[in-house]
């Protein structure tokens, strides 16, 4: 009878599923026994252990992605009760029921809640979000970074490419080729680094390509959604300033 009391409290889920990239989406309901401190990932693990839907039918377990389980890797992003966020940090106690879970449809859906965030990594490559230091001999230490600058740059470096800011942006969709807020903020990060700054024009020019910074429409949803509290709109405005300056410099030939 212990089991009956433990499972007397139920948690209801409505999960949007999809069997493959081109398959039609459908919603499936689940009822799981409540456990204190459970979150969306542990609920999905529960479904994996016992893949039975609310009607009692045995089904293929729901697929999802996760790694760190502490909101630093960004792999488990999904839309929970209408908001894109990390499933590993979504505590059941704090969610309204039934809990509706959907994949972040801004990205191609691979299966169920698994999405393909390749476009974000392509964007990082496009804006050259790294610091080139490779060479044939040791160049020695680079210039030092002022502590004050390091402090705000550190905040920008917390980006985990989770995709929440792209999902929240009304201008990232299939009618545009906008790279989204995350990569723009990374340009600000790498252009503020004393060594990275040496290649800043390349990154600014990448932002001035089609689908670059011009795609921003100032809805500012990104900054309100980023789980890392990254000041995305400040980064975008700052990059607006730097690309504008760069444009005039190019024209005037200075």
């Amino acid at each position, binding site marked *: 009878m212990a089991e009956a009391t433990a499972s007397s409290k139920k948690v209801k889920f409505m999960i949007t599923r999809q069997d493959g990239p081109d398959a039609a989406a459908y919603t499936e309901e689940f009822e799981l026994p409540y456990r204190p401190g459970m979150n969306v990932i542990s609920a999905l693990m529960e479904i994996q252990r016992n893949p039975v839907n609310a009607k009692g039918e045995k089904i293929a377990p729901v697929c999802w992605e996760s790694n760190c389980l502490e909101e630093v890797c960004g792999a488990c992003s999904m839309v929970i009760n*209408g908001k894109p966020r990390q499933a590993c940090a979504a505590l059941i106690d704090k969610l309204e029921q039934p809990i509706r879970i959907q994949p972040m449809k801004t990205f191609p859906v691979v299966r169920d809640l698994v999405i393909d965030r390749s476009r974000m990594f392509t964007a990082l490559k496009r804006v050259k979000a790294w610091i080139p230091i490779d060479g044939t001999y040791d160049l020695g230490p680079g210039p030092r970074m002022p502590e004050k600058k390091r402090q705000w740059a550190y905040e920008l470096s917390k980006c985990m490419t989770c995709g929440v800011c792209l999902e929240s942006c009304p201008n990232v969709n299939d009618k545009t080729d906008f790279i989204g807020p995350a990569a723009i903020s990374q340009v600000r990060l790498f252009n503020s680094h004393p060594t990275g700054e040496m290649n800043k024009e390349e990154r600014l020019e990448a932002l001035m390509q089609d689908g670059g910074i011009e795609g921003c429409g100032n809805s500012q949803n990104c900054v309100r959604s980023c789980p890392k509290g990254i000041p995305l709109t400040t980064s975008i405005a700052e990059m607006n300033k730097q690309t504008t*300056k760069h444009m005039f410099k190019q024209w005037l030939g200075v």
Partner: protein
Amino acid sequence: MKGYYARKLHSLLGVIPLALFFIEHALTNFGAFEGGPERFNAGVKLLNDLPLIFVLEWVLIYLPLIYHGVYGLYIAYQAKPNNGHFNYERNWRYLLQRITGVITFVYIIWHVFETRFQITLGNVTHEGLGSLMHDIVTQPVFFILYLIGVVSASFHFANGLWSFLVAWGITVGPRAQRVSSYVCMTLFVLVALMFILSLVAFRRAEFQEASVWIDTVKSVLS
């Protein structure tokens, strides 16, 4: 043209010359409220007495308007609003900027057809504009449509200034953007009020006099 420059030009034209013309237009019309037909006609005359007025109209108004308007429609089409799940003030202004842009587009075509284009056709003179407006806005349906038009255009103008300041990297941090929101939204209310009061002024009988006069001339001529 590469997207970045096309978009920058759209943004620039929104302010120079369009927003500047918009303010000028608000002032001229407000003359109708402040000093009746005389004041309004003086404003209209002042503008039309400018040298090279034909060139000025095309370079400072029509061409920028066509570019900004058509490209603006495309930008509006590209949006995928999500205000249901992201119920934030800025997100609403994002959506309103696009909706008011589309309303303004339709409204401007109608408004220019009824006023400036009738001058081109020779159906009305610059001096007859006041009474023409009187005839339009004394019809309740048109009055309401004009109200919607001027309020939409005023919002689009003021909120556009706000986003222009972001797009050119002038207001960068959250505090600067907040202060500029207050300033721009105040500007919205003021400019919208000026246009509304002008419309109310055109409804006054003093603008009708001239209209009767025009009708007499028309009937004599025909």
